[in-house]
């Protein structure tokens, strides 16, 4: 089990990681979500030992590994730009880690073949890595990280170059591999759909700190703050002022007065950040308290429905598509408070 404790790191004089702490237990897949430049890759490199933190410790199975050199940690790291060895073939790349572990030749050949099969690249052993497409290279990099059965796996944007089908397929593959082997894993991505599919725990990294950590559904249902909701693309973001009516919390917003769903109580007059989810909406005729009036400015086809944007910049997924310019009334869910 991996324990990160209060890691601090600056980059070019400016603070990057300002106190990161978390654990990854055996069999757990943790997903690190954050915007570009937030320090996700740096954190992985620190864990791998390629960089040193200015403050904080890293424990593996309760032992401080600060003094353990990179090549002895037996952690796996899949680099964001693959870092495949250009002068070696696919086979040689994948076999590298196994050779370092002094695995006998015969076993290596077998292991490489099965690794390739795992990522759907059977028969690619002799190809030059520089001749492969981006997607193929990425899968080779993945296979290379998995082959030596590392104690901890770290993935830096592992599926970004793949098409949707391949991504889904490999995502499931990965999840199976990770669960079967019970290897703890840290997964860095900015694709939250992927994050939610694969991980047991989602961690949101913002401004050098982990602002939320929890199972995907928890994070999904209760984003910690406005930034989290925005980053995860959970829906429309609004602000409003709280007021009470008959012991229920309401909020006054730009789109009118609406009911407020909030786990904590606010005083009247508090300014709050609000989330209005786009799902579960429908077109209606009568005026209902939780309905919104607007003119359609954009209609986009999506798998989850037609994404309809109104002139007030709010968007909803609707089962049927209105016409551009139509005046519509949309019944929505409630406003949730953030943070």
């Amino acid at each position, binding site marked *: 089990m991996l324990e990160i404790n209060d890691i601090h790191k600056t980059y070019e004089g400016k603070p990057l990681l300002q106190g990161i702490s978390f654990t990854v237990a055996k069999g757990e897949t943790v997903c690190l979500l954050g915007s570009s430049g937030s320090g996700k890759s740096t954190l992985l490199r620190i864990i791998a030992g390629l960089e040193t933190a200015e403050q904080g410790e890293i424990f593996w199975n309760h032992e401080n590994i600060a003094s353990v050199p990179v*090549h002895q940690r037996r952690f796996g790291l899949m680099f964001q730009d693959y870092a495949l060895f250009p002068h070696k073939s696919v086979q040689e790349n994948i076999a590298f880690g196994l050779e370092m572990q002094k695995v006998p030749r015969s076993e290596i050949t077998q292991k490489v073949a099965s690794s390739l099969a795992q990522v759907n690249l059977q028969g690619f052993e002799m190809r030059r890595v520089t001749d492969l497409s981006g997607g193929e290279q990425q899968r080779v990099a993945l296979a290379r990280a998995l082959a030596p059965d590392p104690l901890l796996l770290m993935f830096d944007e592992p599926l970004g170059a793949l098409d949707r089908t391949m991504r889904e397929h490999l995502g499931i593959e990965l999840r199976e591999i990770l669960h079967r082997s019970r290897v703890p894993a840290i997964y860095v991505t900015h694709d939250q759909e992927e994050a939610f599919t694969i991980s047991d725990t989602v961690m949101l990294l913002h401004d050098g700190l982990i602002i939320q950590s929890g199972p995907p559904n928890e994070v999904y249902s209760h984003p910690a703050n406005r930034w989290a909701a925005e980053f995860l693309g959970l829906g429309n973001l609004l602000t409003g002022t709280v007021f009470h009516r008959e012991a229920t919390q309401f909020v006054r917003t730009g789109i009118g007065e609406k009911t407020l769903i909030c786990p904590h109580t606010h005083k009247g007059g508090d300014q709050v950040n609000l989330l209005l989810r786009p799902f579960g909406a429908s077109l209606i005729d009568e005026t209902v308290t939780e309905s919104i009036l607007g003119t359609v400015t954009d209609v986009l086809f999506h798998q989850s429905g037609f994404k309809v944007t109104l002139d007030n910049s709010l968007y909803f997924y609707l089962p049927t598509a209105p016409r551009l310019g139509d005046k519509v009334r949309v019944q929505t869910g409630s406003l949730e408070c953030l943070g």
Partner: protein
Amino acid sequence: MKRRPIYWFAPSLFLLLFFFYPLARVLLLSIKTETGTLSVLTSLPEFLNVLQFTLFQAFLSTLLTLLVGIPIAYLFSHFNFHGKPLLRALTAVPFMLPTVVVAAGFTALLGPRGWVNLALMNTFNLSAPPITFVGTLTAILIAHVFYNSTIVIRLVGNSWAQLDPRLAQAARVLGADTKTVQSRITLPLLRPSLLAATLLVFLFDFTSFGVILLLGGTQFRTLEVEIYIQAMHFLNLPAAAILSMIQLLCTLFFSIVYSRVVNRSIVPLNPRAGSINLRPAKSLREKLFVGFASVFIIILFVLPMVALPARSVVRLEPDRGERGTIQPAFTLNNYRELTINRNGSLFYVPPMNAVRNSLVYAVITVILSLLLGFPAASALTRPSRLEKIVDPFLMLPLGASAVTLGLGYILAFNRWLYFPFLIPLAHTTLALPFVIRSLQPALASIPQRLRDAASVLGASPRQVWQSVDFPIISRALTAAGVFAFTVSLGEFGATAMLVRPEYPTMTTAIARFLSLPGGLNYGQAMAMATILLLVTTTAILIIEKIRLPGSGEF
């Protein structure tokens, strides 16, 4: 690809005209005589001995040069530290120093009356100098390392600086310790530039002349020395011609081996900005490495040459005949004397004229060899069958006997040689293979998809060159330019054997001073050598500072 023939046309024509044609003329003329051939056959065993020694000392020298040059290349490509640009320039200076000057420097340091011996004799009360340097194989080897390390340092260093550090990091995460990373990842990726450097260094050592003659004493003979003696002192041109053929064949052989090996190892890399690997030394180990390496560089490259400026401003008389007691006196007389035409000679050279002539020749050489060499190197990155065959012939000028080629020029160009332009043309002949070999690994490492991306974005082929190739290889171009510059300044090979209408350069001035006895002559030689040192160091520093337009980070 309609452009291919054009790439080859200019450099090939140039080499045909200024190398193959004169060489052919002198060889054909010499072989016509039968008596000459007979004498060669009788001396064949002796000549084979000479060939054997030539190969032996070349291999050994090359090996040592690699051993010295590679760590220094690592130093310069990975660390920033105080005085780095100056140290870097200083490692390149030896390359263009005339052997006479280098021999003088080494002798002043390690000769029978050099500083080291004098110091040892004084400290341990010895009557005879304990260290014998001049006249030993060690002297030859050290001088070769001194001269040629810069080739390794620049070619390998540039490659190394642009190596993606993440490859080594990936290997480390996969369990490779430092040694494994070096042997399995770093060295294979450096192979193209390593091979190019090895070939160039080897050819220089193989055709070594001045070093062998001046520092090796009379018991060591290489092919080139033998050719010189046969041609110039025995006036036996046929023997010289046959030896030259042997030399050329060896050069061709090694070039072919190189072509075969290098074509297999050129790999498109992701060349990174040169600064990505640079950082100040942090850990104690790193600091120690930087410190030791810097001191080593100073000892090997700077110390032998420090004697020259020292001797140009210090007067050590009167102490002739006395052993051990030196009464130094500071003087600028030698520099003053440079500006005086003491005996009203027609051939007096004002120092600035010599400097100017040297620099003009050098600049012309750089421009010509880059203009001709770049297209050829481009064409060689993905050579056609014909180009693959032609490739090894490009190295021949470096491996051809300077003496023979010089005589060939006389035959081929006769009075055209009085035309001053021919001197830099002759220099270019020597610089061209150098330039091509320096540029080739760099050009080959540019991934085609970068060029493709530029093309798709609307860049014409020339613009692709400008925006993709140039920035990435600007370091290699600078290195190639520096080489061409120093080859010209040092007047290597055949150019030292030409007839000279009076456009004296710094090197000819130095040789002239040393050909007459007298304190002022020796002093002026030292002074002019110091000027040569200063001019070269400054020029190299300037060249390195010039960033080619658009080269940016690289």
